[in-house]
């Protein structure tokens, strides 16, 4: 592949043709914050924390999905870029529980001096999103600011859907559908601020098409989708990253040869993943590989709430 020349923050830069801006910037030593983007899936392009300024474009452009063009003039750190990123982070942080996002994201939020408290106290004012008619909502009172806070959905022993942490990145929907699993158990439902990840008519996961492959968990950037073991340990205060180690192994259940990453704490397997960049799995597993470890003896779990 030939290289394309472009201007990055006032300096000449080169990156391979066919690069997205995020890769072109990274190749030139400039990193970009992301939330909805994963290297190995098609970019949903929805969180917009990755925006950069490109000369000739009125709005800012998403670095995760815009392709580099010869001669582009890109600013990754202009006041417009910093302002947009800061505000988008503030809007997200003021409406979603971001306590389990990656350390890198936390660092970006500090970099931009993100202060979600600027809006005031947040509260889910409108009741469950599913009960709201599209295009209708209660008038705000000016005292509290809407959030997506809601109780976690604990419907089985395998994983928990804690949508108070959902930034609506579409990754789980894509993983369940066209990108990996082809099961289409979940979709985005509703509209606007009431848009949410849901089964049809909000039925419970056990009644839905879900086959519990857990591939949605693997792509969730915020911990909204979380294995039951990890959820329970965190809830009881027993989750201790400093006592954990990660071991790679090959899944024993069938002959496909999926790589597993076992997170082990105090001698028990507390979480199973597959590397997102693994060429057999791309991070995807089946119910046995992802959840079968419970037979190996994890912590006893409480009954569904």
């Amino acid at each position, binding site marked *: 592949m030939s290289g394309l020349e472009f201007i990055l923050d006032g300096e000449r830069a080169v990156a391979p043709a066919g690069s997205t801006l995020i890769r072109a910037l990274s190749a030139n030593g400039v990193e970009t914050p992301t939330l909805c983007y994963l290297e190995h899936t098609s970019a949903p*392009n*929805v*969180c*917009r*924390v990755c*925006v950069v300024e490109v000369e000739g474009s*009125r*709005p*800012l452009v*998403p670095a995760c*999905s815009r392709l580099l063009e010869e001669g582009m003039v890109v600013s990754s750190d202009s006041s*417009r870029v910093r*302002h*947009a990123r800061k*505000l*988008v982070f503030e*809007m*997200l942080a*003021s*409406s979603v529980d971001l306590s389990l996002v990656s350390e890198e994201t936390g660092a970006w939020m500090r970099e931009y001096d993100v202060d979600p408290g*600027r*809006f005031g106290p947040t509260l889910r004012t409108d009741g469950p999103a599913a009960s709201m*008619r*599209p*295009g*209708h*909502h209660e*008038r*705000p*009172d*000016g005292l509290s*600011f*809407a959030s997506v806070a809601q109780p976690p959905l604990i419907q089985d022993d395998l994983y928990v859907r804690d949508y108070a942490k959902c*930034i*609506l990145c579409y990754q789980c929907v894509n993983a369940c*559908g066209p990108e990996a699993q*082809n*099961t*289409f*158990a*979940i*979709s*985005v*439902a*509703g*509209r*606007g*601020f*009431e*848009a949410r990840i*849901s*089964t*049809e*008519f909000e*039925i419970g996961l056990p*009644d*839905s*098409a879900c086959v519990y492959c857990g591939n949605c968990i693997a792509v969730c950037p915020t911990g909204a989708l979380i294995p039951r073991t990890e959820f329970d340990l965190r809830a009881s205060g027993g989750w201790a990253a400093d006592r954990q180690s990660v071991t790679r192994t090959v899944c024993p259940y069938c002959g496909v040869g999926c790589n597993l990453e076992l997170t082990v704490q105090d001698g028990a397997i507390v979480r199973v993943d597959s590397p997102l960049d693994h060429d057999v799995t791309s991070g995807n597993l089946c119910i046995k590989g992802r959840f079968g470890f419970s037979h190996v003896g994890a912590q006893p779990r409480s009954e569904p709430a």
Partner: protein
Amino acid sequence: MDLHFADAEATEAERAAVDRFMSAHASETGPTKAARLERPRSRERRDLLLPGLHALQAAIGWISHGALNYLGAAIAVPPADAYGVASFYSMFSLTPQAPNVLHVCDDIACRANGALEVVDECERVFGPEGSGDSVTWHRSPCLGRCDRAPALFVQRAGEDDFDHGPVHADLSGRAIDGLAELEGMNIDLGIERSATPQGQAEVRLLRRIVERIDPSSLEGYRANGGYAALHRAVEMGAESIRDLISESGLTGRGGAGFPTGLKWKMAAAEAAPRFVIANADESEPGTFKDRVLIEQDPFALIEALTIAGVSVGAEKGFIYLRGEYPVAGRRLEAALAAARDAGLLGRDLFGRGISFDIELRIGAGAYICGEETALFNSIEGYRGEPRNKPPYPTQVGLFGRPTVVNNVETLLNVLFIIMEGADEYRRLGTPTSPGTKVFSVSGHVAKPGVYEVPFGTPLQDLLALAGGMRKETGGMRNITSFGSVLLGGAAGTFLGPEALDLPLANEAAIERNASLGSGAVVVFDTETDMFEMVSRIAAFFRDESCGQCAPCRIGTVRQEELMVRVGSGFDSGGLIREVGRAMTDASICGLGQTASNAVVSALDLGLIGGDA
């Protein structure tokens, strides 16, 4: 993919509604021939999802889990996906509701004319919003009937929908006892308040309307010069048409002002199959011109879209009409059938081997579906979420194919240009905005309606045509003098008295940080509670955001919340401006990018905010 359906059975009536719908579409090769080239899951007729949901809603009055499963199985769409689509639209109910649903407009132009009294009356007569066994009611954003404010749209199970206006507060009670009576009134409320006053030299698009030809008669249309443009276009050939349109300088009337000829050339340069689409989703608050143009002259749109198809090399066109335009829908359906019967749509037109047909698609209550890429998703049976651009529609559009989307008014100008030539077209207007523009004028003017004037006409002249300020009441009080105007709809900007000399042309508007947008002109007097109006606009964007991207999904919520603080003098608007800037800069589509225009312009003008 094996579809899994949770146990929920469709009733006999629901199955019958879906079966009827499916058999009506069984023989279709339709748009999906191209779709199948693009999409691997070939069993699915996903593009039938939206019309299928309409069929259920219309027959049963709501869409149950069992019904959704049954429809999903028929067209091979997973139930979670079908639910995601159904729950996107405000005209579909996923819970049981009364068979008669009144959608009561409480948007800006209707508010200026007493809509809140109608809302109160509905609450008194029917109880809280959404309640009621035989009749229920909901507030609605602009219904595109601002010329007859306050307006009402009635959705009915098992019977035709209809719209009505003006509704008087004391009438809403009657309306409900006698829906039929209301419908009778709707049938011919005439066009007095909708059409341009006769005898105006500038009238081009509105000519046949002013002359009052019968919108149901193809013969009448032809006797008035209809279909001469298509014949001439076929003689000219595709490339010459495109050149002529470029030469005319015609620009899009849907809001963005893109050169039409260039758009057609770009699509024609891509490989077939291609599509052309008439964007008749018209949901920008304060805009109703496309409704009037279609209701009164439906054949003109069909002829113009056919010319676009011939010129771009498309064999299939779509008209995407907003769901709250039942009269326009019925008239278009009838006109399409008449054109097909007369051999003006179909295979081998005029014995020249040209094939072109048009399918009417009906929206279901979502402003965002007027955005062209959201419109593609809506037709394809996906959620009406805009797509990332680039690629542009002329490259990758409907079903992944090169597509031209044009506003209704843009297309109608094509007829004039073909018959009269580019020079004659340019004779009116300004060098950079040639031709005429149809404005929707509403609010506190004496004669709300559509007015066609040359680009560059001063705003005050347009308002004079509309009779100036009205004297009688707007709701419960008398109207005073001119206070402000909202130009371009909710996505537009407020202008004060100092802007009355503004020439209505794209370049002049941009100079004043405004835009003509869709051509909506909503006038308010000095006594209007502008805080209420601006709050309604903020609520509109919060309701209509598709929710896909964070800056708009959350920003529109924060904007409305912060408005309350601005109103109470608690905040001078600093943070609301910051939110606005982030939405403008970082949102995916034009909705989020313009969602703060009206609020910020109202702050700038001092219409809201005061001196906190």
